């Protein structure tokens, strides 16, 4: 298999605090198309980043990024924020965020400011059943 030169280099990373949020379109997609649907995945596997943070890790809107926390790793699509919020990454509620430890049902969720590292990824977004395997 041919390797590109930049595959030997580590992708730049940026520290972020993950905050989850509800998304009505994602809820709707889950009800209408099911939680294993492409529509639900596309609206769930997302991180909204500050444009400055995106520049630091050399990604643009729609690129894939890997997010690593103490609890887990996940690949999601990056979305450029309309607002400035350096150091904060907003993710829709659901499995792709909760794999990182941002669960609303395990204490102390309400005070959680989950730290994570985010960087460019060459992996694909995992399907929901791969995010959480028993």
């Amino acid at each position: 298999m041919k390797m590109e030169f930049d595959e030997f280099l580590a992708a730049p990373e940026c520290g972020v605090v993950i905050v989850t949020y509800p998304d009505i379109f994602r809820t709707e997609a889950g009800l209408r198309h099911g939680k294993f649907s492409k529509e639900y995945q596309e609206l769930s596997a997302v991180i909204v980043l500050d444009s400055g943070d995106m520049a630091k890790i050399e990604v643009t809107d729609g690129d894939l990024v890997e997010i690593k926390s103490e609890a887990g790793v996940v690949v999601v699509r990056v979305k450029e924020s309309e607002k400035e919020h350096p150091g904060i990454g907003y993710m829709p509620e659901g499995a792709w965020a909760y794999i990182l430890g941002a669960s609303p049902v395990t204490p102390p969720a309400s005070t959680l400011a989950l730290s994570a590292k985010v960087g460019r990824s060459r992996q694909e977004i995992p399907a929901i059943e791969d995010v959480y395997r028993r």
Partner: protein
Amino acid sequence: MVCTGCALLCDDVEIGENGCRHACRIGDAHITSTNQIDPMVNQSPVDMDAAIKSAAEILVSAEKPVFVGFGNSVTEAQATGIELAEKVGAEIKTFHTDIFDDILDGRVKTCTLPEVRDYADVIIFLGCDPMNTHPRLLSRYAYYPRGEKRQHGWEEDRTAITIDLRFSHTASICKEAYTIDPNRQIEFMDALMDALSNKVPKTTYDKKRILKLAGTLKKAEFGVIFAGTGASAPPRDAIIRLMDRLNESSDFRLLPLAPGYNLRSIAEQLRQLHNRPGDDGDGGSDSSSGGSGMDLHEADCILCLGFDLMNSLPAHGINGKMIVIDPNETLTSRYADVVIPCAAGGIDCAGSAVRMDGETVEIPLIRESERLSDGAILKQLLEVV
């Protein structure tokens, strides 16, 4: 018809041949959803009787069973679920019921949604985004409608403010939005408490804005805080302290915005159970909000009643056998040891429910189906365990 898409239980939804009228996006998708599941044991299809028999066997042999969910079942099914939990010695975990407990115990003042519509002049959305979770809250009760004492509605009579970790969709239509740094949530709440006590807050946040917020809150004639329950919500004790401070100078009520259409009912039933004579609260059935009681990974059997537990947890939190009773396919049902499909409350199952403000609402059927209700399934389990 009554929509069971969220705890607002909107009663003006009309179902016709061309779909739903008046329902929001969540309600319409909820009512028209066809994403149903088949009975399964060990991920293989079986008939209903076999699935119920397998579930009963797991429950009987379990030493540390836990029941989770209950927020998406009608009140009658919840009562049967409590009976079953008592019989098998299961703990009931009902996530996000903390604030309901505070309201029911009289620790904080509350009000009804029609009272919000008629009297509320200052409305705070604290750590919540109803535009994405309870979409018709603002149009039916909290912001836009003219009320008995608020004839000018949102234009003049109401001030809506968001305090949240994110500039949400709700924030974008409110008159003021305070976006808190997730690393400095306590600092914000302390600064607001100082400002409410007429002290200049010691904070790195904009002092003038916090003093202005405190001034608005203190002048409220009928203030309402809608508190979220998700990861962006402030700690519960911070909300209680804020409510106490606000009520020293003005008149504020609290209403939680929780997931599930009937969470308040299970909170009420569990409270009654614990307060009944001779019950010391340490019996077989117990309620907790996820913060206390048995850890889920300690449980050897978890019964999920209308709740997608795995889609709410970090990975590898669960080791016990899993039983799912749910109308729809979920991540949890994909991996459960036993899956029992049921009718959905307010769609093909009638009953009653308690709206988020404590009003009991009768839930009629929208359409007939051959699916058993969750209450009927729990009754069958109750008979055989």
